[in-house]
């Protein structure tokens, strides 16, 4: 898919997404408290908040350029299945943004003094939960694509939908931390991701169509 090509051209951005995430993770110890005990307790929450914020920021740009250079018009006109295109685009973005992030995870968990018990839970929640975040996010991005400077608007629309994911994920990690089973939370996350997989491509396609024809 050429989507990858476009992303590859912007490999710099991918790299930047990663660095942004790292920076958020740095910001918290510095701004709030740097004591290992505090950080160990807050680590998974901080990482998840960082992930949510990076996704929010990168997702907002997903259709902006395509809108401004007229590519969205071309997609609509092309007769290809718009929902499918959306899905591919989301997948490409997910791979490119989340994968490097997962690779960084051991390093970050060390920097935040995260206990080993919860590390794998964190990785699992990220794997299962982030596709949902992306899928929910694109709906917002599609709705606001015709609004210049829509970043904030996207966030406003999306964040309430992100809260359940965030809550389930951090609950899972906390359960793992105290030695409880957390597969229930993971199942909930998976369910959320699957649900958005069903709903999101169609909603996104509809939103894109509405934005472009407006």
């Amino acid at each position: 898919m050429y989507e990858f090509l476009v992303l590859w051209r912007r490999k710099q951005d991918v790299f930047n997404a990663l660095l942004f995430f790292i920076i958020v993770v740095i910001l918290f110890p510095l701004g709030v408290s740097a004591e290992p005990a505090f950080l160990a307790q807050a680590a998974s929450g901080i990482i998840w908040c960082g992930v949510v914020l990076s996704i929010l920021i990168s997702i907002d740009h997903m259709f902006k350029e395509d809108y401004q250079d007229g590519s969205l018009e071309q997609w609509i006109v092309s007769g290809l299945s718009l929902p499918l295109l959306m899905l591919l685009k989301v997948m490409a973005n997910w791979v490119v943004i989340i994968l490097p992030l997962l690779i960084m995870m051991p390093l970050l968990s060390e920097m935040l003094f995260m206990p080993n018990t919860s590390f794998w839970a964190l990785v699992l929640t990220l794997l299962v939960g982030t596709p949902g975040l992306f899928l929910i996010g694109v709906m917002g991005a599609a709705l606001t694509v015709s609004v210049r400077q829509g970043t904030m608007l996207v966030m406003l629309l999306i964040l309430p939908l992100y809260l359940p994911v965030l809550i389930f994920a951090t609950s899972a990690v906390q359960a793992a931390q105290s030695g409880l089973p957390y597969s229930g939370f993971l199942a909930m996350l998976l369910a959320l991701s699957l649900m958005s997989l069903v709903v999101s491509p169609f909603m996104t396609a509809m939103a894109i169509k509405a934005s472009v024809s407006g």
Partner: protein
Amino acid sequence: MSWLWFHKLGSPKWFFFWSKSWALPVFCIGCFGLVVGLVWGLAFAPEDYQQGNSFRIIYIHVPVAMLAQSCYLAMGVAGLIFLVWQMKIAPMFIKAIAPIGAVMALMAMVSGAIWGKPTWGTWWVWDARLTSVLVLFLLFMGVIALQNALEDITLANKAAAIMSVVGLINLPIIKYSVVLWNTLHQGPTFTITKKPEMPAEMWLPLLIAVVGLYCLVAGLLLWRIQSEIILREHRSNWVKQEVMGNGL
């Protein structure tokens, strides 16, 4: 004093030929010094009574940490020179030194982290020195990323220079603020006013390793600047002659 050397230094052609004769010797001296310092430090220096043999990491840790800071200093000065005098060589210098500096900062963090495990019990703490090296690393990465993101060469030159100067102004502030915020790391060994507290057998190899690494990096830097010059001045006749001959 004549300013001639300054203008000469600014001319890529002059710099190229000047550096061509210096790069290899400086690099070799550097390698030699580093090897001598490290072998001495690793095998012959006495053991530290508190930390045992883990302290031997100092012979690589301190040189790279010092280099990381010096590289930023040099980069910032080069940026300033470019913004004020438009010296042609300065952006090439920045382009060449930024990756070296980033690597040095990274090595300081890695060697420090490995040292931290036996002495402090963790790989990482949020301490002033460590945080400021991390920030240093990010500043280097910022300059590199900026240069990569901007395709237009004149813009990339200016932007990288501005960024390095701004970072240079901020570096002491960052340092001061993090020191104020949290200090755990050891103070400096070498100061101009005081003699080191370690025994000479311990600090002498360190000094040799530091000087060696400086020379090694200087050699690398000259080579990198040379390749930058070749790429940017590819249309001038002397580059053609240089490239078609086997001088390189």
